[in-house]
């Protein structure tokens, strides 16, 4: 364990950019410069933590006490660094993309938009590095609040309604999480995350254990989009597309599933999970969500809403991985955090580019657009088949490990769910690709690709999906890291 303030710098880096962004509100280029600079610096800081994480050491920043005996604790453990790396890395692309999107779509109040975006990323880093439950709660609520202005950004009645729904769901989840944290503290006397679980080896009555788990689940399930508390996510698509792309495909919702992994692996612990049958509850919910959300995706005529339901389904892949309580299943789940991130962000970027460029949002209107937007639709195709789990894209790998993990535990049902969901994925993405490539389009004369600010991130994230599919350890060694995290949870005897 190393004592260092590096995790703190990663958290406050984008927060420090907020005043600069606000002060340069009249000079858009300078303002966006701050965003890009913060994104790059943040990624650099997280990257500097990676070697420690890969070596299995934890960098800890212990700040002042936030409650007697409970410090504000930032701990860059391997899981935290893994998540932080994905979120901060994709923020760079999203920042460039945002510039193209916000200016292209002529959105108002762009300063507010960039400022809250930066706060969101700080909160996400805080969630990733939180070393105890109270710190986690603090940043979790901060993320809730900072996302709200982005959801209501357009200030239409639809957006405001979406914002209200968002707050009702997330604030309710917040109080459940606080209750669960309090219970944990009173029953165990600690709030520090511990690989293998805080509750490991404690003898609590099953009823108490199940209630605590359900409260935790209630707390994290909303952001993780687990049914039946998922419905805020499709509604939140009222936000500008970069928000949907980074926050509602990566940062916010992944904070939810990250929370699930933290609770399963570091609070309740795999042992207690299977001892009290808690993994069955989790599995049932995840399996149901995967199938139902995939089916519901078919009914969505709006492209972003279809992607949202697809997100709901894929988030539950990760939850499913956690519920298997096998090392390989956990590995698959953690890998899917990264895989789904690169693929889904590509798809949302594409949806945004189509909206800004052609002002089209419905799937029926996408006829023939591949002719004018070849790069965008090419990237879209890669993301879509990756989500369906077809090699050589990274979605295949994570799905493979999920399936192997299920077999490792002697379970067939999860494999069946994964196969069925793969077919459903093909089912709901195929019409989009068919419309774009094979149907004759109308009113497309004079249109070309979107601005390079948007196309470049799209192409890069799509390329990353392919590269990580073929070389999973490329650049960052993410694959080994995921395996090491999972192994670390189950190795404790």
């Amino acid at each position, binding site marked *: 364990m190393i004592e260092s303030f590096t995790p703190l710098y990663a958290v406050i880096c984008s927060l420090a950019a907020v005043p600069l962004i606000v002060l340069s509100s009249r000079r858009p280029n300078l303002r966006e410069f701050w965003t890009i600079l913060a994104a790059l610096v943040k990624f650099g800081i997280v990257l500097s933590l990676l070697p420690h994480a890969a070596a299995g050491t934890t960098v800890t920043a212990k700040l002042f006490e936030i409650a007697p005996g409970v410090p504000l604790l930032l701990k860059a453990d391997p899981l935290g660094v893994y998540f932080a790396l994905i979120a901060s890395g994709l923020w760079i692309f999203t920042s460039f993309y945002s510039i193209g999107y916000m200016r292209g779509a002529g959105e108002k109040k762009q300063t507010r938009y960039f400022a809250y975006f930066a706060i969101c990323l700080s909160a996400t880093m805080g969630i990733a590095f939180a070393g105890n439950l109270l710190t986690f709660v603090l940043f979790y*609520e901060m993320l809730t609040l900072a996302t709200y202005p982005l959801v209501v950004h357009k200030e*239409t*009645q639809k957006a*405001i309604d979406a914002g*209200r729904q968002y707050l009702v769901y997330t604030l*309710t989840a917040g*109080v459940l999480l606080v209750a669960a944290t309090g219970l944990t503290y009173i029953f165990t006397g600690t709030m520090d995350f511990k690989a293998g679980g805080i509750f490991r080896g404690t003898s609590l009555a099953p009823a108490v254990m199940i209630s605590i788990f359900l409260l935790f689940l209630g707390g994290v399930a909303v952001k993780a989009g687990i049914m039946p508390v998922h419905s805020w996510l499709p509604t939140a698509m009222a936000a500008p597309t970069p928000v949907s792309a980074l926050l509602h495909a990566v940062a916010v919702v992944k904070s939810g599933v990250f929370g699930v992994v933290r609770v399963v692996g570091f609070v309740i612990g795999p042992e207690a999970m299977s001892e009290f049958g808690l993994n069955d509850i989790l599995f049932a919910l995840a399996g149901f969500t995967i199938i139902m959300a995939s089916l519901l995706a078919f009914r969505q005529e709006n492209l972003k809403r279809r992607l949202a339901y697809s997100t709901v389904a894929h988030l539950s892949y990760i939850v499913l991985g956690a519920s298997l309580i096998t090392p390989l299943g956990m590995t698959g789940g953690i890998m899917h955090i990264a895989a789904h991130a690169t693929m889904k962000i590509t798809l949302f970027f594409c949806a945004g580019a189509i909206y800004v460029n052609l002002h089209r949002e419905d799937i029926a209107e996408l006829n023939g657009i591949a002719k004018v937007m070849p790069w965008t639709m090419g990237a879209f195709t890669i993301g879509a088949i990756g989500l369906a789990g077809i090699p050589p894209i990274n979605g295949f790998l994570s799905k493979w490990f999920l399936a192997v993990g299920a077999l490792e535990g002697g379970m067939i049902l999860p494999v069946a769910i994964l196969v069925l969901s793969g077919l459903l994925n093909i089912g709901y993405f195929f019409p989009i690709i068919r419309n774009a490539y094979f149907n004759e389009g109308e009113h497309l004369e004079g249109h070309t690709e979107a601005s390079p600010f948007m196309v470049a991130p799209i192409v890069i994230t799509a390329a990353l999906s392919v590269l990580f599919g073929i070389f999973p350890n490329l650049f960052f060694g993410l694959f080994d890291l995921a395996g090491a995290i999972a192994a670390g949870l189950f190795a404790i005897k």
Partner: protein
Amino acid sequence: MIESHLPVYIPFTFLAFSLVIPLLAIWKDDWSQPVATAGAGGAALLSLYGVLTHAGSEPLRYYFGGWPPPVGIEFVYDGLSAFMLAVVNIVTFLVLIHSRKIRLAEFASKQMAFYSVVMLMMLGFNGMILTGDLFNMFVFLEIASLSGYALIAIGGKPAPVAAFRYLIIGTVGGSLYLLGVGFLYNVTGTLNMKDVADMLPLIAAERSLVTALILMAVGIGIKSALFPMHGWLPDSYTHASSTSSALIAPIGTKVAAYVLIRILLFTFGLEQINAVVPLTTILGLLACAGILYGSIMAIAQFELKRMLAYSSVAQIGYIILGFSLGSVLGLIGALLHVLNHAVMKACLFMVAANLRLQEGHSDIRRMDDSYRLKYPGTMAAFTLAALSMIGLPPLAGFFSKWYLALAVIEKSNWLFLVVLLVSSLLNAVYFFRILEKVYLKNPKIQETGAPPITPRQEPPASMLWPTLILGVMLLALGLGNVPIVNFLEGAAP
């Protein structure tokens, strides 16, 4: 030298100033406000000094005229009373600074009377906090109450009626308390709190003792607006002048709640009470009912001050709930909430006052997004206070609720836990309703051409700064709650 006389210097600063103000007013009426503010500032400094130097040392017992109890009257300056004095006097100081412009707008012709009576009321409150004598408590209670009636009567047209209603109910409360003291004296033969506390274990539970206890609890319950004895509060707070409500709302009911703590916890002792009547259970349930009732009624209000008044009914519930649990954690939660709520409510009533001065009303229905541009500072303070009221970390309000929640969990009282959590969400409903109006454009209002230019209309610095200071204080009190909690832990019996 100062230390040993501190218990007298602090309250008698107010007494001296209440007499100086009328004398000065003969010469210059306009000087009342600065002089009163200076007096309150002096008392605030002394109380702050007392808290800082007195932390953790033995209680200071001040015998008036050198007569030891039970013959004489004593003031007790221990951790608890030092803490309360600091809270009450600092908030008062800020409210009086804030009143600089309000006095001209709302009671220009009655300045001398107003400020002199304010000083008298503060003498009453300070005396209630310090006294170690049950009858002397009644005297100070009446000084504070009578001045309170007068201050509430100085206000809008319906104010005298509201004040008269308060007078009737308040006098009943005071009389019940006095009756209770009579019964107690009959049994114990002493009025000194410490003597009573020493003597009670020796006396078997007599019927007159129970009568005394219930009469005193009901009497003080009325003064602290404990549900269902809160009827006088909403009208009084709504119709009183802005300064009166900003002064009485944050501290008036809190001091009464403190008296309840002194009498029930320190004098009678909860265990002995519960052996005779399940008083704490009853108090806890009433507190819960008050929390829910106050929050729901607050949602139904259209007038900001009235909404805040109902919210006060709910907040007093938290305090009573906390100490009724009879644990150290519960008492810490309750006392921390006394502090936090005093700061939050003072800040919120100041916001209402600022709006009333500039707009002539504080009607929630008439608020729109122009307020964001007209009052950026006031609205920022409002946002901080509102988020703190909801209980979002890291603002102060979260932490008092956190300790309360821990205390409730420790006692395994699940009903109370549910009430605490639900009330947070109800708070969110009535505050986000306003935030949404102020920060987001109303989509129903069609935009006609260029947006109207709205210049800043912030109230003068004497009003804006106290509001902002209180808002920022919430952040500081939240992040720095540990030293306060440690201090309170030392003050607990």
